[in-house]
């Protein structure tokens, strides 16, 4: 590893200021960063450890039921938070798919976002849940939707001296549910060939009032399947509707062929996985729908 300096600030402002230096990089769990530095894939002269900043590891569910957690909070810490685990199960399930237990003890969802891998498991789940990123820097605080923050593989909209401080997730509703599913050859310790996150909110009459579908590993960034989302609006979920949403999501996908799967195979997977994620939401809302 190339030599670097290490700093562990204790406030968010100090951390952001330290990240203004050229060659500075934020360290949360390190499960991506340290490997990238070791393998010479990322040149870092100054490592800024975020884990000593209380705000950046804090986890809080507000009185209105919404969640705000520090970008450096580990998957293990989120999963161990009883309210978070009970109210945001899709996010925790997605986090629990990242690497092994050892990885989840360290890895943060903020890091999963900022590493900006197209196959990041937590990102589609968070996008489906309507999460927003809270950034802080010299210019103050700003909020961005995750799809505006992630620009391409390894690239984010963060500017030097700016830090992803927290992630906000809206409160769940009695008629809303989320689900993330993925396909991997091995159940654990693998990278998604395709991942699909879905979130539905039903109106009183059981029709879809709001829908979000986010896909992993079928584009340079995690993608929203907007045509599929539109098709669901105002309709009552049925096997035929979910199958059609799956077909539209496959058309929304922009996959490439690589070592994990061909573009055609990925589109076929999106069709199945998007419908399954939606069926997973419906099941939580008391409606069993059989999909292939």
């Amino acid at each position, binding site marked *: 590893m190339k030599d*670097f300096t*290490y700093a562990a600030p204790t406030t968010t402002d100090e951390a952001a200021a330290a990240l203004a230096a050229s060659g500075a990089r934020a360290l949360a769990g390190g499960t991506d960063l*340290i490997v990238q530095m*070791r393998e010479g894939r990322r040149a870092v002269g100054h490592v800024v450890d975020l*884990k000593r900043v209380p705000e950046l590891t804090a986890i809080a569910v507000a009185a209105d039921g919404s969640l705000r957690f520090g970008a450096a909070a580990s998957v293990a810490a989120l999963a161990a938070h009883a309210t978070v685990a009970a109210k945001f199960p899709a996010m925790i399930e997605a986090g629990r798919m990242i690497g*092994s*237990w*050892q990885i989840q*003890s*360290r890895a943060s969802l903020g890091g999963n976002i900022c590493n900006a891998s197209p196959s990041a498991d937590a990102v589609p789940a968070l996008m489906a849940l309507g999460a927003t990123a809270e950034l802080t820097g010299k210019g103050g605080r700003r909020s961005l939707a995750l799809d505006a923050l992630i620009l391409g593989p390894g690239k984010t909209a963060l500017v030097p001296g700016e830090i992803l401080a927290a992630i906000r997730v809206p409160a769940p509703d009695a008629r809303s549910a989320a689900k993330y599913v993925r396909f991997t050859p091995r159940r654990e310790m693998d990278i998604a060939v395709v991942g699909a996150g879905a979130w539905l909110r039903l109106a009183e009459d059981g029709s879809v009032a709001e829908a979000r579908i986010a896909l992993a590993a079928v584009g340079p960034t995690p993608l929203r399947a907007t045509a599929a989302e539109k098709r669901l609006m105002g309709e009552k979920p049925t096997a035929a509707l979910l199958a059609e949403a799956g077909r539209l999501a496959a058309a929304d996908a922009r996959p490439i062929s690589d070592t994990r799967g061909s573009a055609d195979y990925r589109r076929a997977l999106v069709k199945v996985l998007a419908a399954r994620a939606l069926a997973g939401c419906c099941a939580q809302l008391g409606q069993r729908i059989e999909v292939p």
Partner: protein
Amino acid sequence: MKTVIACTVNGDAHEVLADSRDTLLELLRDRLGLTGTKEGCSNGNCGACTVLVDGEPVNACIVLAAEIGDAEVVTVEGIAPGGKLHPVQQALVEHGGTQCGFCTPGIVVAAKALLDRVARPSAQEIRHALAGNLCRCTGYDKIVEAVAAASLAPRS
């Protein structure tokens, strides 16, 4: 950059001169002489270097020594104080749950972490907990049987 690292490993406080680039694994093996923890892949995949940091299993090869601060680190040496085997170790011996033995320290640490949380894990829970510990001899069945047997052993 040289840096002084203060840490607590297996209950003993240490203050060592290290390099800011040192991983926790290098600190343990090269600076403290605790060579029970093994280096396998060096990129967080194989779990041979599993140690506990504040009770959570981590891959020591991708944690910086500088990050440890006042956390409590437990290595395989700390799991068998005075040479008395932990029930997981005893069961691995009795069930032949070791082949070449290289992955064993990491498996002992991860399995102990599991049994600290789940008194009677199912075979599925054991396999899930140990998914990050690769055994290239591929002797997983005996390892899983050993951890299940250890969960039934009386614990002091």
